[in-house]
């Protein structure tokens, strides 16, 4: 609850930044439309994607709410409805629609949502270099070796067929690993959200926050690594 009031506080600040209607210069009270002259307002560049949809900054979100709000705002900003309006309003409608689409695409996918939130929250931990487990690199090095051998082999040969079988097994193992990392991530997402819900400002809470951010960042980047290698593998043996 604490966190929630905090969020609305943030949003008010953001709106204050563009407190005047670009058209009638009156004080802005509405969210995306001026109360007085009903003109569409540009979505502030400082507004994060979560606030854009009125969602709490969490890793697990209600995607139904996201979708409903997306459709609602899409209709409100859609360029088709601005064809007879002024150039300024058409430009705003285009800009807002583009921003809205990016925001929706980002938040819809749990991985992209996490990466986005991490970028928002990371701050100091952004530059901490994470060290992926050495065994992952060994696995990938071996796999690259086999891939190399396979690329250089005569596809019709018995050797190629042995390599192909091995690569298929490697693929299964890596995909399994990717799933494990995704499960780990989900667990961390839950812990992160719970920490946000508690809204504590203690030293321990800060340490836990940083540790969670670091762990999530590290798993996310390893997952991307594995995913890219799997794609590479699939392409080669296809």
């Amino acid at each position, binding site marked *: 609850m604490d966190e929630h009031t905090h969020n609305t506080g943030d949003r008010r600040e953001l709106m204050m930044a563009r407190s005047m209607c670009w058209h009638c210069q009156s004080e802005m009270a509405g969210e995306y439309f001026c109360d007085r002259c009903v003109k569409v307002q540009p979505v502030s560049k400082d507004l994060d994607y979560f606030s854009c949809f009125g969602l709490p900054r969490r890793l697990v979100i209600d995607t139904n709410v996201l979708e409903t709000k997306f459709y609602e705002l899409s209709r409100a900003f859609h360029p088709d409805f601005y064809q007879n309006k002024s150039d300024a309003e058409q430009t705003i409608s285009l800009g807002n629609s583009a921003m809205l689409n990016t925001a929706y695409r980002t938040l819809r996918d749990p991985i992209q949502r996490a990466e986005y939130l991490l970028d928002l929250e990371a701050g100091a931990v952004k530059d901490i270099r994470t060290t992926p487990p*050495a065994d992952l*690199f*060994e696995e990938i090095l071996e796999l*690259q070796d086999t891939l190399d051998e396979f690329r250089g082999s005569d596809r019709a040969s018995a050797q190629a067929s042995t390599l192909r079988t091995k690569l298929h097994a490697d693929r299964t193992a890596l995909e399994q690993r990717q799933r494990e990392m995704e499960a780990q991530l989900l667990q961390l997402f839950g812990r992160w959200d719970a920490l946000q819900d508690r809204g504590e400002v203690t030293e321990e809470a800060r340490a836990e926050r940083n540790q969670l951010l670091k762990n999530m960042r590290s798993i996310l980047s390893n997952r991307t690594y594995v995913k890219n290698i799997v794609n590479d593998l699939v392409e080669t043996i296809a």
Partner: protein
Amino acid sequence: MAYSEKVVDHFNNPRNMGSFKKEEDGVGTGIVGAPECGDVMKLQIKVQNDTIVDAKFKTFGCGSAIASSSLATEWLKGKTVEEAGKIKNTDIVQELNLPPVKIHCSVLAEDAIKAALADYQKKADSK
């Protein structure tokens, strides 16, 4: 963006490509990677009487990563373990004229050297 002449040279004629047996006496192995670009690098040293007598590498990655590790093996040979620990990624950047976007390749090479040295030390200590 073009690669510098030195990078191209190392890429076309990589020095010391290959590997030693990990279990072999005096061999230290460092395997590092960069998830962001998908590179993976293996660097090995062979140490006798505290001096690196041979070094080998195997890198799957971009030209700069290959050149960085190739150069690293060249530099490692003949150095003592202590001297080897002093090789900095900035030295590699300078020698190869790496552009800012490729600096992480040299960092990877430095990490690989450190990992290989640590592995050698660990093996030596456990004896």
